[in-house]
């Protein structure tokens, strides 16, 4: 499943980029994230997601696979598994920043969903992703404004 999000952040591009590439700090900005810890290049943690009566607890890791500071692009890979209902996901997330104060952040996600999580259905999963990304962008705006 492919998802596209573009958010505008009213801050210089260099600060937005630095905020994104501080992976543990960026991960803490994801709504529902907990127990975030850096382990070398890998950031580990758990993402709690709630869809009505269905609760997911996605434990996994994120790593920067490719990064181009000049172009302002990076590819992240996230793998996570849920222990509550069973299921897993693998996502490749392409980040690209363009413009400068305001800076546009484009997030292109290609996510494969395995197991029972898929029973929730694509429309609902896409909607949850929209909510998580909107919360992440709000947090990133505050973080970048504070630096």
């Amino acid at each position, binding site marked *: 499943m492919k998802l596209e999000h573009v958010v505008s952040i009213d801050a210089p591009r260099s600060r937005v980029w630095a905020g994104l590439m501080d992976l543990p700090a960026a991960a803490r900005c994801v709504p529902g994230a907990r127990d975030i810890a850096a382990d070398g290049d890998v950031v580990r943690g758990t993402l709690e997601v709630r*869809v*009505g*009566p*269905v*609760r997911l607890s996605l434990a996994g890791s994120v790593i920067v696979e490719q990064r181009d500071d000049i172009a302002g692009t990076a590819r992240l890979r996230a793998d996570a598994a849920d222990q*509550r*209902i*069973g299921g897993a996901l693998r996502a490749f997330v392409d980040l690209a920043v363009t413009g400068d104060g305001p800076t546009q952040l484009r997030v292109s996600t290609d996510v494969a969903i395995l197991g*029972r999580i898929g*029973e*929730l*259905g*694509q*429309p*609902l999963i896409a*909607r949850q992703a929209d909510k998580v990304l909107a919360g992440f962008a709000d947090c990133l705006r505050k973080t970048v404004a504070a630096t």
Partner: protein
Amino acid sequence: MRPFEYLEPETLDEALALLAEDPDDTLVLAGGTSLVILMKQELVRPARVIGLRKLAQLRAIRSGDAGLTIGALATHGSLARASDVNAFSPALAATFAAVATVRIREQATVGGNIVHADPSQDPPVTLLALDATAVAMSKARARRIPFDELFVDVFETSLEPDELLLRVELPALPVGARATYKKFLPNTLDDYATVAVAAVVATDADGRCTHARIALGGAGPVPLRAHDAERSLVGRRLDDRSITEAAALAAAATDPIADLRGSARYKRAMAGVWTERALREIA
């Protein structure tokens, strides 16, 4: 299905006390038509399930000068047949009769339907248009929640985990009010609607609109009120011009989720078409 502890309280107080013990890992079973599917899919795995079937008082349907009160455990079938419901609003009785299939209607309850909060369900749309209020209770308190504030997101209501929905209250309708519920079912009769519309209007002796309610199902993450469309009708005659304007405003109020029943754009367009049809029927 995962093993779970099943409890069947004899009284409301007992049910609320059980729920208060461990609200986050307890689920309440009414008719079970939604919950049992979620449990079989193992999408939900409660440690405890509280079955409400012994709480007969929650099945009561009562009407009076103040309006209509529907107990949370009343089934859709019993509501579709109830003379009190039909006398209050034939459109409401027709809404319950339009839910899914006869087997589901006789098992599923209005309370279970409401707390499940799927935005494509039928009863919440008409109840919203009829200015319904939910009455909920926990061990600590009772609370009244207008339907406008009840639905928060897909499958989410503003009820707390320790609260039980007891009943739905509907105020008396304005004199001469007319109502309708229309669902657009391009696939099969027992499918969820692509979009659904409930409309209520009342007019004065000159034919000018004095009361308008338009509620939409399947048109966003929650059942929606088309407030701008309602306001546009008040004070005007319900003619071609006011109806097409209101239908366009209703379509603009939607925020549909694309799924197998249609793209967001298609559902928005259909919300306008079916709002127009509903208003023409009761104009």
